[in-house]
């Protein structure tokens, strides 16, 4: 419940960002006439950054960027993970073994170096960041789905459907996919916080777009401008708390979903 409220709050913030601050306030020129690193005041609710931009504007627009990247990355990861998981579980023989090997490869790859290399190669727009994160985050979910498909494949009603003359496509869409759908959804809601954290990590390490900044990017700005030593808490605290908040929100919602779809977890 807490998770859901938090989530609604963040989503509203992201959707209504233009009401609070104009997009132009993210440009470097927007802060030309403002004091640099000013503490919170009536005009700047959360003070300004080192080039005079309104931190509150950065925060609400950051919600957009962070959520966009987190959700798009999740969609990519879930799509890739589900398709490959389904194939790996349903196919037999060398196809299944090859899928498993690819899965293992992505599971053991160290994420940050890989993502940095990919981001440098492909560019640093939010969409590219989302694709990079999604393209490396699918392996765990794929493994989960494969395991479930392996069990579903042996059910009596799959045997019946085969005897019925149903094609593999029919069996997968009518019997296997509905069986793994709850798993896919619960898994997706748990990938989102991971993806947002990953994005923040990469942004903090210097990747990402300075002028459509995510929360991680704002944190990087705070770090590199010395806001921490200058004790400019209004600069680094809001994006930090936002990241913690959204990760918490998605994790709580994800756990709740998992409990709904798999009531066996209730007793624990």
């Amino acid at each position: 419940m807490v998770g859901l409220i938090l989530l609604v709050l963040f989503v509203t913030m992201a959707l209504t960002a233009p009401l609070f601050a104009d997009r132009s306030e993210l440009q470097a020129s927007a802060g030309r006439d403002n004091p640099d690193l000013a503490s919170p005041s009536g005009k700047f609710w959360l003070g300004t950054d080192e080039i005079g931009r309104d931190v509150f504007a950065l925060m609400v627009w950051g919600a957009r960027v962070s959520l966009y990247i987190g959700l798009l990355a999740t969609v990519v990861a879930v799509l890739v993970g589900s398709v490959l998981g389904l194939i790996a579980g349903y196919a037999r023989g060398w196809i299944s073994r090859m899928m498993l090997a690819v899965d293992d490869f992505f599971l053991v790859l160290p994420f940050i170096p890989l993502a940095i290399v990919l981001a440098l190669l492909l560019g640093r727009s939010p969409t590219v960041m989302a694709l990079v994160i999604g393209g490396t985050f699918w392996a765990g979910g794929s493994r989960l789905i494969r395991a479930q498909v392996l069990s579903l494949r042996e059910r009596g009603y799959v045997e019946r459907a085969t005897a019925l003359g149903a094609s593999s496509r029919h069996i997968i869409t009518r019997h296997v996919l509905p069986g793994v759908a709850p798993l896919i959804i619960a898994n997706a809601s748990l990938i989102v916080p991971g993806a947002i954290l990953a994005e923040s990590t990469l942004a903090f390490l210097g990747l990402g777009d300075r002028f459509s900044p995510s929360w991680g990017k704002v944190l990087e700005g705070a770090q590199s401008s010395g806001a921490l030593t200058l004790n400019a808490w209004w600069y680094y605290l809001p994006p930090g708390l936002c990241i913690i908040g959204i990760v918490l929100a998605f994790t709580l919602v994800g756990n709740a979903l998992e409990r709904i779809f798999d009531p066996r977890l209730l007793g624990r």
Partner: protein
Amino acid sequence: MPLLEVDDLHVTYRSSRGPITAVRGVSLRLDAGETLGLAGESGSGKSTMTMALLRLVPPGTQVTGSVMLAGEDVLAMKPGRLRAVRWAQAAVVFQGAQHVLNPVRRISQQIQEAITVHRADSKVADLLEQVGISRRRGAAYPHELSGGQKQRAMIAMALACDPQLLIADEPTTALDVMVQAQVLKLLADLQRDRGLAMIFITHDLSVLSTVADRLAVMYAGRLVETGPAKEMLRGAKHPYSKALAAAFPTIGDPISRLAPSGLAGDPPDPAAVPSGCPFHPRCPIAIEECAAVDVELREIERGWRAACIRV
């Protein structure tokens, strides 16, 4: 032309212990409208044999011989043709209906599945009524139906594409005796009305007496005896068929009730079938020769054959 003609069917499973031959050369024929009762212990290969008729075997399993279904060799069919033939020409009533019904889909949806796959033009409601389930129950989920109703729903599903052959794989196991009798009567009625050919698998010979025209008894992947049902139930020739029949006490016959005779030992491991007649280690009338000479089915009377040198 018979509806089904099986010739020298072998089924070999792949396993971690190497290939295991579960069916070793079965030949049989079935005319339209005829019911063949197939009996045998667990592991005798009767389910494997019938499922192999539609190539419903795990991938990697080897099926050789020939299976002519309505003049077409099932074993030579391309996958697309095979899928079209499955259910449309030969449908299966599985044992244990609760496992073969998807628990999260409505009964009517699952029957519809068969109709959709084959673009048949039957109606779910009509099918349900034919098996004695009211059309409103079609909206129920499998767990809301009784065991007998679930099995009836399975029969309705089997009839969806108007098949010529019905393979009933122990359709009455796990049902109580009264429900069992109802399901048997339903199958017999449907068979008569629609002129269905049926292969009825069971290990319970008493069930076969009410439905089957002909009997076939399997042991260790082979047919050991086949003949007219009534005569065979009264006096089987092969010692294994005799033992199988004697295992059921006759109601009203105190002698058979007091001395139900079983059969010692277990069916042979399909990976190590005994030499000669595979039944000889358990056979009460075995002689030395049985261990050495492989026996073929021999005609003992018209339409009645047994694989035993002592008969």
